[in-house]
């Protein structure tokens, strides 16, 4: 298992472009009921899909359910996948729609069950510098910061949160986000701008410190 859940977009792009035909072969086999091929596709994208859903919900149990349901739904809908976009974008779209629908239903009961921070977080120089200024106890400071950060993210609208999560956390490009969110690049940029403005206001103490 990788320590960091979501890697930047550069790696995603190369993954997607290096073997698109191989991926299409797997998709085609899965479409004809080959579960082994689908297993391979799930393993390929499970971490990224889980991470996106988790960063949107800030809840491990919800992310677990939604990520699994997204893969099940994608398998059942494989016949409708025409190959107009990459399988990865199509799968992302399913997960994002499912998550947004879920969040709309959950609106009145927002709660967090945050995932633990990995070992690397404590050794990240930027974070260490930030926390050292705020609190003498580093681990307690990190958890507090994590909670504040997630609470601030949950205050954003779903579309603004999604733009920030996909770009600043997951590292996807504007073009990819536009495809996933079914909108143009200008809309993505504007959502990103307003989301960051809101976050900066909500996390003013921590952002100034850096």
């Amino acid at each position, binding site marked *: 298992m990788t320590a960091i859940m979501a890697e930047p977009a550069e790696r995603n792009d190369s993954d997607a472009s290096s073997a698109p035909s191989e991926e299409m072969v797997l998709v085609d086999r899965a479409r004809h009921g080959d579960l082994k091929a689908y297993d391979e596709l799930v393993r390929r994208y499970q971490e990224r899909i*889980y991470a996106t859903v988790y960063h949107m919900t800030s809840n491990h149990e919800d992310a677990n359910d939604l990520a699994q349901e997204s893969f099940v739904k994608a398998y059942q809908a494989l016949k409708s996948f025409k190959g107009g976009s990459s399988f990865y974008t199509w799968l992302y779209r399913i997960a994002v729609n499912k998550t947004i629908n879920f969040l709309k239903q959950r609106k009145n009961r927002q709660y967090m069950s945050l995932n633990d921070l990995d070992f690397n977080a404590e050794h*990240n120089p930027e974070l260490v510098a930030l926390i050292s200024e705020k609190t003498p106890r580093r681990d307690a400071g990190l958890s507090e910061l994590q909670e504040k950060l997630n609470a601030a993210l949950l205050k954003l609208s779903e579309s603004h949160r999604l733009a920030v999560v996909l770009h600043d956390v997951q590292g996807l490009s504007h073009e990819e986000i536009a495809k996933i969110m079914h909108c143009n690049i200008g809309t993505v940029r504007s959502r990103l701008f307003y989301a960051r403005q809101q976050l900066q206001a909500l996390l003013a103490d921590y952002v100034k410190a850096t």
Partner: protein
Amino acid sequence: MSENEENFEALRRLLALKRHEVPPPGYFEDFSGRVLGRIRAAEAVRELPWLLRLLQAFETKPAYPVAFASALCTLLLFGIVSVEQSPVLVSNPVLSNSPDDAFSTGPRSSAIVVNANTNPPVDVQLFGSQPNTSASFQNVDFTSNGN
């Protein structure tokens, strides 16, 4: 936009903390297995006959049997009330008083109200009393007149 990116650099560094949030150890080891398990379960349900699928839906979602029972009770009550309250009107032109009525197309003046009750009518006079007939009785004298 690049200026904006610079303005938010501090925020972006802070957001990078999110990348360190990880699920419980070993979580992804069995993730695909759980997904495939759900797919197989869904396919198995789809292959069942409709009656079994319905029963399974009743088992998995408690709201379904409650809704089904409520609908059944409502239907039953509606049936009972409608049978009790609405008599069936049958017009019978032959039994009407005026011969014109038999051929008139307007609303019938005479109608027979037929009780929708399916119980056989019980004539209480059958037991222990004489039948009530409208025919006139003539007393017959069987005694001889002296002839």
